[in-house]
Every structure is written in structure tokens, then in C-alpha cells.
């Protein structure tokens, strides 16, 4: 019985390590800043951002609770200008803690803060990502 628990624990640890590794191994990925306590981390893989044109990104969450994330909501604001985007992005869950976001539009040049709320089994987790649009 003890052996089974040990094996299960090893398997979970291994899974966690695998997803964590997936976050680190993503080329061109930018780490998300977590504003919630917890063991989930995330990265964003950005497409080129043409000013005032739609673009997309992928979000990948890693850590032991990453695969429990069922839904994410994405928005973005320009802190210096006190406004957000004029469009609501579309989010598609791709599985294994990965999400595709489309229909983002940065209509002004400057610093944008992408805000991400992830919900799953536990409390919502919040992340941000700073991006310069030119």
C-alpha cells in the first residue's frame, strides 16, 4: 500500500516536473507575473503585435495544479492612459494547461498590461504580462 502511495507521489511529482519543464522549454516565451499565491506558473508565447490590428498569443500554465485550470479570461489595459482594449479576446482551451487567445487589439503604442484570470478547481489565480506595442 505504502509502495503504491510512493509510486503515485513519484508519478505526480514527475508530471509536475514535466509541465514545469514545458514552461521553461518554450522558445520565445515570456514569463507571466503571478499575483496570486500558489504553485502555478505560466508563460506567454506571443505572435508579432501589429499596432491596431488583431493578434494572438498562447498561454501555458505549469505546476502541479496547472492542468486543473479549466477557464481563463484575458484583458489588457494601458496603465498610463487608463483605458483597456476595445475588443473581447476569444480563448480556446488546447489541453494540458495550454490556451490559445485570439482577437487581441492594442490600438495605441506604449506599455500594455495583459491581465489573466485562471479558474479551475481552487481559487482563481491572477497573472499579468507587460508588453510594449510599437
Amino acid at each position: 500500500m505504502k509502495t503504491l502511495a510512493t509510486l503515485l507521489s513519484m508519478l505526480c511529482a514527475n508530471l509536475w516536473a514535466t509541465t514545469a519543464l514545458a514552461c521553461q522549454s518554450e522558445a520565445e516565451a515570456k514569463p507571466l507575473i503571478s499575483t496570486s499565491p500558489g504553485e502555478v506558473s505560466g508563460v506567454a508565447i506571443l505572435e508579432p503585435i501589429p499596432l491596431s490590428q488583431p493578434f494572438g498569443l498562447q498561454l501555458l500554465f505549469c505546476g502541479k495544479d496547472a492542468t486543473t485550470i479549466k477557464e481563463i479570461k484575458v484583458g489588457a489595459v494601458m496603465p498610463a492612459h487608463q483605458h483597456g482594449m476595445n475588443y473581447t479576446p476569444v480563448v480556446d482551451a488546447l489541453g494540458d494547461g495550454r490556451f490559445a487567445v485570439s482577437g487581441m487589439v492594442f490600438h495605441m503604442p506604449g506599455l500594455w498590461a495583459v491581465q489573466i484570470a485562471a479558474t479551475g478547481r481552487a481559487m482563481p489565480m491572477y497573472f499579468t504580462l507587460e508588453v510594449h506595442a510599437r
Partner: protein
Amino acid sequence: MIKSVFGLLALFLGALWMSAATAEVILSDNEIALTLSHGPWPPAFVADPSNRVSGLPAAIKLGKGLFFNPVLSRDGSMSCSDCHDPSHGFADPKARSVGKVILDRNALSLTNVRGHRWFGWAGGNDNLWAQSLVPILNPDEMNHDDESLKTAIAKSTWIQDYEALFGPLSEQAATDVSVNIAKSLAAYQETLETGPTSFDRFRNAMERGDIAAAAHYPLAAQRGLQIFLGRGNCAFCHSGPAFTNREFHDAGVPYFINQTRVDTGRYGGLEALFASPFTLAGSYSDDREKSGAWAVRQVQPLHSDFGTFRVPSLRGTARTAPYMHNGSLADLQAVVDHYNTIDLERLHTDGEAILTPLALSKRESSDLLKFLRTLSDDEG
């Protein structure tokens, strides 16, 4: 005699040296990079997938003929060109355009419309053909309905051109006829484009690294461009090759039409958009992929939309006075003065924090104007 010739030669060489000494590019590397983002111009033509006659010569011919013909007004009293005056950059020199009554807004220029995402001051439509229907069917403007328009076309000299392009009129529903007419008008308007200007020659020379050619751009215009890109914050909204971000902002222009009525701007535009059967997501679009429909599906109504208006392109702008949605600023000098002394009390309290009085000196205002005029000297 020889002394005089030498004197003249010396004067000539002196003038040449002076001119060479003053001809230079004063922009920083960052300003040059920002300047390059305002081109190249004009953009390559791409047919509108939502309009099956976009780019077709027969449709352009029909659209042009109808644009200048009063058949599109129910009483035959006005044509599109009455408000969109070709000798005025296809805009209206009147502050508020006049149909059956004095309308609420200044008719926008129709040049460079094919690159827009939203149409009209409030963006009530997401495509050019739907926008073209608005004045035709508005009781305060050309006052047709679908049936009267179909009858007018049937009796007009344009019936053969129409049927050659769209098939037998009698077999078509009246609304389909209206949409077909609008699509031919759109095909014509897609051809109304401003050409390269002295700004574009400057920009293109810098892209090639040809500083000698770039230095022909007047220093005053370069200083104005520096204000436009930097301290003036103009390029926040007037971005990209068309000098517009295609979106909606509060420019601090009063939106009271009179003591009892306000122009709701983008707020009302979105209401019209969501009620329209003629969007890129609808069945009147010829694009099976609905490729442009993402905008109408994803646009987000915001409280701050109230009283905001579309950012117009600045290309050809010197030809299209007066300015702003209600034509309240008579000339470009008045526009610069408006931003120079903008009344922050007129801006949304919960809106974006972008505008602030520019407080430009007389010379700086003059430089900014000189730059703006270089976006309109393509016909010079």
C-alpha cells in the same frame, strides 16, 4: 565687369553653401523608426471579400455614375457628391451637412476609405457598402426605401449597367437591389485614394538610408513631425500609414447638438451596428469565410464610448476643412489651437488620460501645421 561676375559667383556659391548647410535630417534614431511606421503609402489594393464586385471595372463605372447622379435621392434633388464634394477631398465644406434638414455631423472625406475597420464618425457599420446605404435610406438625407430605390433604378439610365453586373432587376428582392447598388458605390469609393506626398518622399528616403534626399524635407516640417511624434502625443491615435488607429476617442469637442439633444457618438454607433443586418457577420456579406467579422463579434461596448468619435485619417486633411465630427473647427490652425488649449473639463472623467494642453509656442504651432500640410501636397 569681371569684378561683378566674380561678385555674383561668390554670392551664388555662398547661397549654395548656406542651403547645403541647412539641409539636414534632425530626427533622432527613435524618431526615424517611428516615422517609418507611417508608410509605405499607398497600400496595395486588396479586393474586399465581402463585396463580390469590389475592384471590378464595371462596378466602379456604375458606382461612379450613381455617386454623381440624383437618382439615389427619392425626390431627385441630391447626389452623394453634394455632401462628398470631389473638389473638397470628397468631404463637405459645410460644418454640418445638409440633407432634408441640417444634419448633426460634418460629412467625412471618402478618400482612403478602403482600409477602415469602422465607417462613419460613430462606426455604425463595419464595411463600406453598408455605410453607403445609410444616407440613401435615411429620411433626413436621400429618403429612399428599398422599393422606391428599386423603382428609381429600373427607370434610370443605369439599368443596363446594373443588370449587366447583377442580373435581371425584376427577379431581385428590393433589399438585394439596395445592397447591390451599395456594393457598386463601394467599388467606386475604393478607388478614391490620396497619393504619395512630400512626407512620403522623406519617409521613403530615410528607409533607403538616402539622407541627402531626405534632407529636402523642410526643417520646419521636420520640427513639426517631432512634435507630432513626441510631445504632441498626436501619433498615439493618428498612427500607421493612414495616420489613424481606426478607433474612437474623446477629443474634447462638445457633443451637445442643441440644448436638448446630444450626439452619443460611438455609443449610438454600436447600437446601430448591433441592429444592422448588413454587417460582415451577416448574410449580405459575400465572404463565406466571414473573415472581417471578428470585429463586430468581439467589439466591446464601453461606458466611455459615449461622445467618442472615430479618429480620422490625416492624409489629404488640408483639403477637407472644417474639422471634427460637428465641423466646429474651421481650419487646421483651429485644430492645433484646440489641442493647444484643450479644456480638460470637457473630457470624460472616467475616460482615457491622454490629452493635455500642448502649450505650443507660435513657432511650434506653425511647425506642426507645416508638417500636417505635407500630408496633403500630393496634388501640388
